[in-house]
């Protein structure tokens, strides 16, 4: 088996490199877009208007209550039909689906991060005469970021793994690479092991980096 692994690597290593790059690209785009949109969604959920709150909550619940694979199918097949004029690439459709999914989770992360800041901080700021916006910007959010940032990085790690579902549509990520090599060589275990090791290395290193970041943030308190 070791021989086979070496053979696969030497012959198709470049494919895994390409796959890794696409996986990371996909994950980065997703986490960046969903960070921005998720934060906005979290803020919208605090709106004074009931319909806004209702819509946002419904969105979060629906996304979290349906499988990502279903959402991927939905956007992959629905989007080109809905807006044919845009001629969306497969990659774009997959990105939209991943962002659609991840936004809900990020919104929850942001909401929890804000919620974890002691209510007294907001009250004290308001008692001095700050508006709720000023209190949010100068007192609550800077403290919430410390809760949010590590959780957001963990979401990034989760997305790296979840992008593997996108290989259903052969968009070139690590799992697609496995499928391609499997098609060329009929080998199953060997390319799968390589793919697994790549995923593990990336997520393990990232997790350790996040833990270090978290410790550093705690120390700066």
């Amino acid at each position, binding site marked *: 088996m070791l021989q086979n692994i070496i053979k696969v690597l030497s012959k198709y290593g470049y494919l895994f490199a390409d796959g890794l790059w696409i996986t990371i690209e996909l994950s980065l785009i997703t986490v960046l877009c969903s960070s921005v949109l998720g934060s906005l969604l979290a803020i919208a959920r605090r709106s004074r208007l009931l319909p806004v709150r209702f819509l946002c909550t419904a969105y979060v619940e629906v996304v979290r209550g349906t499988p990502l694979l279903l959402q991927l199918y939905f956007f992959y097949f629905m989007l080109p039909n809905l807006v044919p004029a845009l001629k969306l690439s497969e990659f774009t459709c997959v990105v939209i689906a991943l962002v659609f999914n991840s936004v809900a989770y990020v919104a929850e992360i942001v909401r929890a991060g804000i919620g974890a800041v*002691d209510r*007294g*901080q907001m*009250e*004290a*700021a*308001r*008692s*001095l*005469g*700050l*508006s709720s916006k*000023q209190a949010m910007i*100068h*007192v609550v959010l*800077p*403290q919430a970021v410390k809760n949010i940032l590590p959780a957001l990085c963990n979401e990034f790690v989760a997305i790296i793994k979840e992008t593997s579902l996108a290989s259903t549509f052969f968009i070139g990520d690590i799992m697609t690479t496995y499928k391609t090599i499997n098609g060329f060589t009929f080998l199953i275990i060997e390319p799968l092991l390589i793919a697994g090791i790549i995923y593990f290395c990336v997520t393990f290193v990232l997790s350790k980096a996040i833990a270090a970041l978290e410790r550093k943030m705690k120390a700066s*308190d």
Partner: protein
Amino acid sequence: MTDKYEHMIKTVDLKKDFGSLKVLKGVNEHVDKGEVLTIIGPSGSGKSTFLRCLNMLETPTSGQIFFEGTDITQKGISVDAHRQKMGMVFQHFNVFNNLTVKKNITLAPVLLKKKTQKEADEMADELLARIGLTDKKDAHPSRLSGGQKQRLAIVRSLAMEPDVMLFDEPTSALDPEMVGEVLQVIKELVKSGMTSVIVTHEMGFAKEVSDRVIFMDDGNIAEEGTPTELFEHPQNPRTQEFLSKVLY
């Protein structure tokens, strides 16, 4: 400019419900300029809720609150502007954990354009010297003791140059050895003529600094009077019972 109002703070039939729980059952009370009013009473009697209504941290269910002649319970009124003139000190200090000691003091005056950064910095230095925290000015609050945090919280409010200070059990969360240093700061403040409303369990302190004491029980003011009247000759049986439990 003449200030044409009778009392600095006046509440009219102030009621507050939390769900089916009636916490305030129609409180009529007032605070005059320069007066030190202390509120005592058992837990759950509504004294903290009453205090928190005064600067609208709790929205009253009904009734009115006049601050310097303006009904601040009216819809459309800028509560923020009035809060700038009402300092508040909390049981759990609530100093801003993300800011340095000095920034805790200067944030609001600068942000609300009451002072330039330079003026605010100078004032902060003065205030920190007054409470003996000059050497901590660049530290974060996590490096302070409870007593130091509370003293910081007091001068943070003072930096806004308020007309009245509200104290919500300012020493209840402190270790016993730190109570004295905080009470000392409040005493000095009160002696300088600051109008104050103080919710406290420190009976000795209440007796010493108050012009008037209110005993609250079950959402109502059960009795009020001068410290001597209330502590030496309580009339209401509930007051007598409460005092007999806390003054041993």
